[in-house]
């Protein structure tokens, strides 16, 4: 049970720790700063560049399809790298299994290609 106690203490500290500077800032603002809100003062501070427009803009859903196709290559790499590292010690069946895996991925890509997903409209 001791471990859980430690976890609880850790959790409490984790909650309190970010609250302290927030509370200090709030107290500072309450006691010392004059309340003069304005357009520039209330603006969002982002690297000093003036913000333009709303954050909720529409963008093409096509983007997601691209990201998904990219994922094919991503997953491919994850599996291919250990396979390549241990290549010389693997039996021929492992090579075949890997080729099947690649075939499945390539088939996905070919399908997406033929469906015209790779064309940016």
């Amino acid at each position, binding site marked *: 049970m001791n471990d859980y106690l430690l976890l609880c203490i850790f959790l409490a500290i984790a909650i309190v720790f970010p609250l302290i500077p927030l509370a200090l800032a709030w107290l500072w603002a309450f006691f010392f700063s004059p309340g003069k809100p304005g357009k520039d003062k209330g603006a969002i501070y982002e690297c000093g560049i003036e913000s333009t427009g709303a954050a909720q803009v529409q963008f093409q859903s096509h983007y997601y399809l691209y990201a998904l196709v990219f994922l094919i290559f991503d997953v491919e790499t994850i599996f291919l790298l250990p396979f390549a590292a241990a290549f010389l010690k693997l*039996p021929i*069946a*492992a090579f*075949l*299994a890997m080729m099947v895996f690649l075939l*499945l991925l390539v*088939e996905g890509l070919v*399908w997406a290609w*033929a*469906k015209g997903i790779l064309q940016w409209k």
Partner: protein
Amino acid sequence: MIYLHLLKLLAPEAILVVTAILVLGLGLSGSSGRLRPLMTRLTLLGGLIAAWVLFIYPEDACVLNGMVVLDPLGRIFKLAILVLSMITVILSAASPVRRHFAEYLALILFATVGMLLLAGTEELLMIFIALELTSISLYVLTAYLKESSASAEAGLKYFLIGGVSAAFLLFGLSLVYGVEGTTNLRALLAISPAQATDPLMLAGIVLTLAGFGFKVAAVPFHLWAPDVYEGAPTPTAALVASGSKVAGFFILAKMLAIGFGASAGMAAWSQFRPGWLPLLAVMAALSIVLGNLAALAQSNVKRLLAYSAIAHSGYMLLGLTSATEAGFTAVFFYVIVYALTTIGAFGVVEVVERRRGGSQLQDFDGLYKAAPVLAICMLVFLISLAGIPPLAGFFGKFYMFAETLAASGEGSNPGMLWLVGLAIAMNAVSLYYYLIVLKHVFVAKPVDDEPCKSAACTPVIVVLALVILLLGLFPDALLEPLRAAVSFYTASLNLP
């Protein structure tokens, strides 16, 4: 040659994947309207070969720490799942899915692969992956009708609730793994009693049950079911209601009996002990009551079938609370019979929907005049669901209730009588709404007098109705193989 051995064990799954790839390729090669019959036939051929291959390698195996398991029981369930999926394919041959038909078939095949894997594994991670493969394919299949907002809504609801429940399931499995240090179900069976009642283990069981509760649409995880059944293309709804349910109950039973076998607890009257049994009993009671009562108020037959499915999930959870070999056999029998019945009912709904443009109760008016064969099939399905002899539904329910009572009665304690009594009372309620549908089919005046042309899937529906009738008359045809397979399985568990 472990890979070759693995490929042999997973041959049905591999064949289905190859079929899916071929169908996808066909879909790319030309106009989907002309190739539609060819793609359907190719899919059916793939399913047929997969079913055949299932039986030409009769060796039993358990490889990769239980990730791939093959035994007689699993084989029966794989066959059932394959049959249900192929019926779904036949139903979808004339479905409202017009565009991207090749992808529709391929997704059905992928979902089937997921269910087959689910029926052939005893490892927590593999269970999760197979469950996700099934679910994700079904989400897409549910939202397939792009023009219909109901379909999109159903897909979104299914996806969101499914995603949350998958998170619950994974968290639960991770807790189980954290306590026991193994992901193999058989290894979990051998844990010590102290570990079995560890609070963390119990929390893991609760979360896991929440995840599976979603899969089998048990109250309080049922909210997606009515919308999905109503909004999804009817073949998809049929697959969700039948194949996915069979796979879900099979793996749930395995999970409870083997994985959590040591922390069963007790749900008999006034003898409650923590474990999965009381949880299951509460879920069963809620499902039976809510499913049957909510079905009374439905005006859409697909929604009605959804609430009836929730109630049936309750009955089957009740059967699982017996936690005996005979009780599980009864549940396995019932879930297969239920899946065959409900897919048949969805077949009739599909035909009516195509003719009359909807699946409201009014759309079934005078079906008997327009298509007597379909009407009689509908009668068989609904009466079997209601549990009236001599149909298979009656026998399955009777056997399930009887085994549950027999397993729990000890001396003067009424045991599970409270739950079985509730189930029987609620079953009487269910008769009312099934008969309402039949009243529309047989008694109500038809909207138009023109007879329906027989649909392509009518022979399949007739065969299903015959199977339900025959299984009611000769239940041993299915029960004996199941009983043998279950006892074979239990015997394999007791081995060191």
